């Protein structure tokens, strides 16, 4: 996976060096050239605006009140605190991260749960959602924003994260998220692609959205309603049919530190 800010490192260094070169009269290529020891270069800020300490935990996540218990500092690089334990259907999360309810290109719909009870995950799933949202926004996708549903259950007060999350059978260890199919009318509302509402289903945008998620996370499967989604994974064994997935699709990423814990 290539993080977009990695490409910016080379560009930033080149621009900085050129700028200094020009300021010192370097336009005359045959004139005076500074001795390398005369050049003082401030370290370029290679961190993206949304993650100023470059620790891959976004500023929004680090300043999210629900995550205060972790003591994350947006100015200081923090290690990934989250660990997925057990399995998708029998597991829990250590030091889960709460997804900010709104971010670039996405919005979390609360659904049937109370605020900050249904949106806890590992850093990897949070990164996938946030980066997918930025890609969605940067590629000029029109509204709606990506509709993010349930991640894993959690309680910031008791610090209990993951575990059983009815009516889900999975969603237990912070590696899964439910997302709405994309509507073509811009409304940030549910969409059931199996009924008459399917006229409002934007198939192409939904395919784009899934590809953004795959580009930003180690997606191992996506549950969809294959009869109505009109999507294929070209034999890559990512898309699977599951009843009950006509009003959202379900994305699962691999366990970043393996399944042994």
């Amino acid at each position, binding site marked *: 996976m290539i993080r977009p800010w990695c490409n910016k490192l080379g560009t930033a260094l080149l621009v900085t060096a050129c700028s200094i070169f020009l300021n010192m009269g370097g336009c005359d290529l045959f004139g005076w050239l500074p001795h390398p020891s005369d050049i003082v270069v401030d370290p370029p800020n290679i961190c993206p605006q949304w993650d100023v300490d470059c620790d891959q935990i976004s500023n929004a996540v680090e300043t999210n009140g629900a995550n205060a218990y972790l003591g994350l500092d947006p100015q200081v690089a923090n290690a990934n605190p989250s660990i997925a334990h057990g399995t*998708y*259907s029998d597991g829990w999360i250590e030091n889960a991260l709460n997804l900010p309810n709104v971010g670039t290109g996405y919005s979390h*719909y*609360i*659904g*049937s749960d109370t605020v900050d009870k249904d949106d806890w995950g590992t850093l990897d799933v949070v990164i996938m959602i946030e980066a997918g949202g930025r890609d969605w926004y940067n590629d000029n996708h029109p509204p709606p924003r990506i509709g993010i549903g349930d991640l894993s259950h959690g309680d910031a007060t008791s610090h209990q994260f993951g575990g059983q999350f*009815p*009516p*889900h*059978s*999975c*969603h237990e260890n912070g590696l*899964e998220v439910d997302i709405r199919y994309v509507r073509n*009318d811009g*409304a*940030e*509302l*549910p*969409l*059931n692609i*199996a*009924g*008459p*509402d399917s006229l409002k289903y934007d*198939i*192409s945008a939904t*395919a*784009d959205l*899934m*590809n953004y998620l*795959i*580009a930003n996370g180690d997606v191992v*499967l*996506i*549950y969809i309603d294959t009869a109505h989604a*009109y*999507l*294929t*994974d*070209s034999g*890559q064994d*990512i*898309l699977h049919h*599951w*009843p*009950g997935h006509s*009003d*959202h699709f*379900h994305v*699962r990423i691999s366990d970043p530190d393996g399944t042994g814990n």
Partner: protein
Amino acid sequence: MHFKLTIVIASVVIVSTFVIALTVGGDSLTGRLIVKLEKDNRLMKLAGADGRSAEFYVSDKYWVHSVTVSPHGDYAAFIEEAGPRYTDTGSAAHPKIALVVLDEDGRIVARANTDVKMYDWSPDGRRLALVTFAPCDPDYEFKCPTGAWIFDIEQSDITKITDTAYAIRWAEHDSLVYIKSSDGVLSYNPVARTMSKTAYLDIDFSPDGEYYLSHPGFERDSVIQLYETGTNKNVAGLLPQDTGNIVGWAFNVGHFLHFVNVVEELETAGTGPIKVIKGRKVKTAVNTIYEPGGRLVVMTFEGTISPWCGDGSTLIIERDGKLVLVEIP
């Protein structure tokens, strides 16, 4: 044991703007109600062995779905939703949902105005077991179960039997109502009006009750399992390999499993691993009828599963634009 695959070519008739060529097996259509739902909420009825079909019922509501025919072919039922669940302006609209029952002539004989999510016929075709859901939150989908009920068609009487139910099945072999609940699988005796907890893991019993299928839980990454009802033992090892996906129990008698293996040719668009399907063509669709007790492939035949639905005594398959009825004598 003998099985018959009946394919008899009959006449071609024009229905609406398209042509159906119908093949039926002699008298197999006599007295049977076979219906199909069109996209504009029209129910069509297969009208005779010569292939005629006729408009059966037209709904002026927003969405008709979950059409079935009763076990003896006396009634058809469907779920009707009065409006969209959500409006374009952002405010949720709670649709009026009903379970509607029609007689053979398309007349409404019973209607249960309730948030029905799924239902199943009693073996005698006179009652329905159903589960209801309601939105837990006005902005979200129907997630919260609100009860399981028995609906008596002839009495137009509906009775609640439990508060929390996710799925329901009225078993043919013992006439008990099986309910998937948060407390496991329950059985309800509609005569004694008693509820019991069972050790079963699921409710998809074969018509003769010898076996049941256990479908993986919501979002669980596992496969369908087969259990022997008497011992409650997993006998998935009896299932054949390379026969495609399980469709379900094939007929309303015995314990014949229907598998279908479909190979499609897709026309796709887009870049990236996920692509949009612009067109699909079925190259081959091989059906297998299998009897797990004897590990016996009873028959194989080609064809896709038809949108026409009947009383369950036959399979209705489409092949080369024609209907094929597959029967057990």
